Every structure is written in structure tokens, then in C-alpha cells.
């Protein structure tokens, strides 16, 4: 379903930035972030298994951060925020799974890019009203988290413009627009359901068994 690169952004949640303001001045950061703080998800994150997502033996629980994935239909290179969303062809729900990690100093490849760590919902037409909708996460039938992209410090159009000032977001790429810092956790055997009005819901489960 995804032909290109998959990018995500951290430290784009306004309450988190307020909480971390003091930490940004301290080592190892020493200064607040200037450019968007980006990461990539590798193609093995899209590997799916009929019996659910298998957690490696070294993990007891994972962070499950529900967000929106913007799929590019045209290339964004040095675009303005006014034109940025013209490059977006469709949108899907995404569950960005990671090993909980509090440091943002080094790229979190091992934490973020395990097999199956990016379930995606069916893509739908892009509609900017989605940025005002609630993204709701339920675990085993109980609602555990809700947030809205209105919390983003840098909205999607500004984010695309900022990223495209130094690299191209190409047709076929996917951009995860930000993560809630208070994302819930899940463990083996959990069933996770994500919904957002206007988009196809996303349901996944974690295998009960510990893999070798």
C-alpha cells in the first residue's frame, strides 16, 4: 500500500513541549529543537501476520500512539504552508507502535522499527476537517485514550512546508503528523481498536504467546 518512505514526527504535541521546556535547555539537548524532529519507519513495520503482532521476548509492553497518516500524491519540495496540503492525496489512521523510551537524543530505530510496528487503516479521501476530529483508542473494549490533531504544535500544512524546505516528500510517501505524548500502552493478548469520525477504523491484536 505504501510505495515510498514513511516519516513521522515527534515532539509535536503542545502539552509535551510545555512539559519538556526545561529539559530542552539541559544536556543532552542544550537547546530547543529547531527543525521538525523526524524519524522513519522501515518496511518491516508493515509486515502483517494473521495471528496478530508478535512482541519480541525483551518487551513486556509497548506504546501505542494513534495518529493520522498523510499519503502524498504529488511531490512536496520547498512548498509553502499555503500550498502544502495540495500534495496530500489521501489519509489513513495509523498506529505507531514503539518500545517506550523517554530520550529523544539518538534515533530510536530499535524502539520504533520492529516487525509489524505500523498497522495502517484503509485510506480515505483527504479532508482537512479530520484535523479537528478526535482519534480514539480502545484496548480490550475500553476507551483508554483520545486526542485531536488540534494539539499539534506545528499543524500539518506548516509541518509539510518545514520538512519540504530541506527534503522532498514524494508521491507515495506517508507522513505521520505527530504523536500524543500520553499515548497508552498495550501488552500481549490485547485487542486494540482505533477510530476517528470520517476514517475507516483500525483493529489489531497482539499475540498472546511470547515469541522465541
Amino acid at each position: 500500500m505504501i510505495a515510498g518512505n514513511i516519516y513521522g514526527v515527534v515532539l509535536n504535541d503542545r502539552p509535551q513541549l510545555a512539559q519538556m521546556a526545561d529539559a530542552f535547555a539541559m544536556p543532552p539537548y542544550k537547546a530547543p529543537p529547531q527543525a521538525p524532529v523526524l524519524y522513519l519507519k522501515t518496511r518491516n513495520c508493515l509486515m502483517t501476520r494473521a495471528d496478530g503482532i508478535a512482541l519480541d521476548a525483551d518487551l513486556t509492553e509497548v506504546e501505542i500512539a494513534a495518529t493520522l497518516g498523510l499519503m502524498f500524491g504529488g511531490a512536496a519540495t520547498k512548498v509553502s504552508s499555503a500550498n502544502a496540503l495540495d500534495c496530500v492525496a489521501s489519509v489513513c489512521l495509523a498506529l505507531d507502535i514503539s518500545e517506550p523510551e523517554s530520550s529523544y537524543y539518538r534515533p530510536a530505530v530499535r524502539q520504533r522499527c520492529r516487525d509489524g510496528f505500523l498497522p495502517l487503516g484503509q485510506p480515505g479521501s483527504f479532508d482537512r476537517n479530520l484535523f479537528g476530529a478526535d482519534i480514539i483508542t480502545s484496548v480490550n473494549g475500553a476507551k483508554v485514550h483520545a486526542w485531536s490533531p488540534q494539539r499539534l504544535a506545528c499543524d500539518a500544512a506548516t509541518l509539510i512546508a518545514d520538512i519540504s524546505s530541506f527534503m522532498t516528500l514524494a508521491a507515495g510517501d506517508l507522513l505521520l503528523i505527530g504523536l500524543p505524548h500520553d499515548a497508552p500502552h498495550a501488552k500481549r493478548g490485547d485487542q486494540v481498536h482505533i477510530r476517528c469520525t470520517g476514517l475507516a477504523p483500525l483493529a489489531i491484536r497482539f499475540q498472546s504467546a511470547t515469541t522465541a
Partner: protein
Amino acid sequence: MKRARIAHKGSAVWADLVKNDTVLRLGNGETLPVATAHWLPPVTPGASIFALGLNYADHVKELGFKTKEPPLVFLKGANTLVGHQGETARPTDANQMHPECELVAVIGTPARNVRAEDALRHVGGYAIACDYAIREYLENYYRPNLRVKNRDATTPLGPWIVEAGDIPDPQNLALRTFVNGQRVQDGSTADMVLDVAGLIAYLSQTMTLLPGDMILTGTPQGVHFCAAGDEVICEIEGIGRLANRLVAELAP
């Protein structure tokens, strides 16, 4: 055997180097002299591209770091790659832009939870990358951050992939970088902190490496700041010479 990816009659195609690396032979039997080739990065679309920071003891010392444990792994998008004899844009304010010659291991067969002693069996071939860095764009968030390492066409890669069987010991290869003919890096893959086999074992602990995935294994010492117009050649023994030219980035 060496395999290249070239633009030919409107298609991106793979081609084998034959006749002492002077001729490219396509799958359909067509041939063309290498002198006329339009080289593309020899990458499988969709491949994951891993890169290593601080993976040579001498370079770690040069930059004033302690050797990091665990390995410093970062990722690159396909937009970063550019083929042999390509051009890389140097931003006007990038006064600390420097080339980094790196051995690239290309995965040949899927690898998950492989032991280091078995890992080289999963390598399909080797190539050369020049992983340019721009030090003034470094920030201490997911460092090295994407503004430094994920710019379009800032990672020349190629010129081709040499089959793994032709590189019996990937940990005993000389690597050198020349800028306008001046040697600015001169190292050996023997000085890697974590060798190719160790890197594959480490990565495969938590993820499935798939055929075509690439691991840029880090660079030895020799930080040399470049200017627009510089010709940069990265050379690795047994693989070849990868040429690139820096050009001034167009004003916005």
C-alpha cells in the same frame, strides 16, 4: 560479478558489467559501453536504508565522542540516494559539509535473529556510499537528524553492487576519499567498531532484514569540508570508485 542500475531508453534497468567492466549487458542481451551509461543508485525500490554513526574507532576519537554502546543506527529515505557521476547540492550556508566514504552491505536473503557467525550468508553484495554530513545543521534530537542526513541526493551510492562471493573478507578493505584529487580519508574496514556480521546480527534481533535492504556501515576519520564545484571520489578496494560533484544549491 558486478550489477549496476542504469537509466536506459526511458527505463530503470539492472545490468551486468562484462568485458573487464567496460561494457554493461542488460537482461535482454543489449549491451552498451560504460562510458555512455547514466548511472542510478543500485537500490531495490522500497528497501530500508540503515546507516551507522560512530562505527570507526578513529573517527569517534576525531569527533571527541566515546564509543557508543549500543550502536548508533539511523535511517535514510530513498530520496537521499544519487547514482555514480551524479551531483549533490551544497546549501550556500553549509560551510561544514564533508564526505564520508562507507562500505554498504546489501542484504541478499531475509535475516531475523541471525547469529554473527552466520550473518555474512545473508549478504548479497557490497557497494560504496558517500554519506555527506552538514555539521552546522546538527541538532541534539534524534541526532544525526534528518536535516543533516536526509536531504535529497546527498548520498551518492554505487557505482554498482559487487556480489558478496567476490569480497571474501569485508573487514579488510581499504577505503579512501579524494576531493579534487587530494586524499582526505584513508582507512580500513578492519577498524569498524561493529563489523558487518555484527551489525546484521544486531539489527536482526528486532527486525526482519529483507533482500535489497542496505546497511551503510560508517566512516573512518578524515573530516574535510567541501565547496561547490568539488569533485569527490570515494574508493573501496575490490568494489570501485564512486564519483560525485558538489554543486551550489539553487537560491530559493
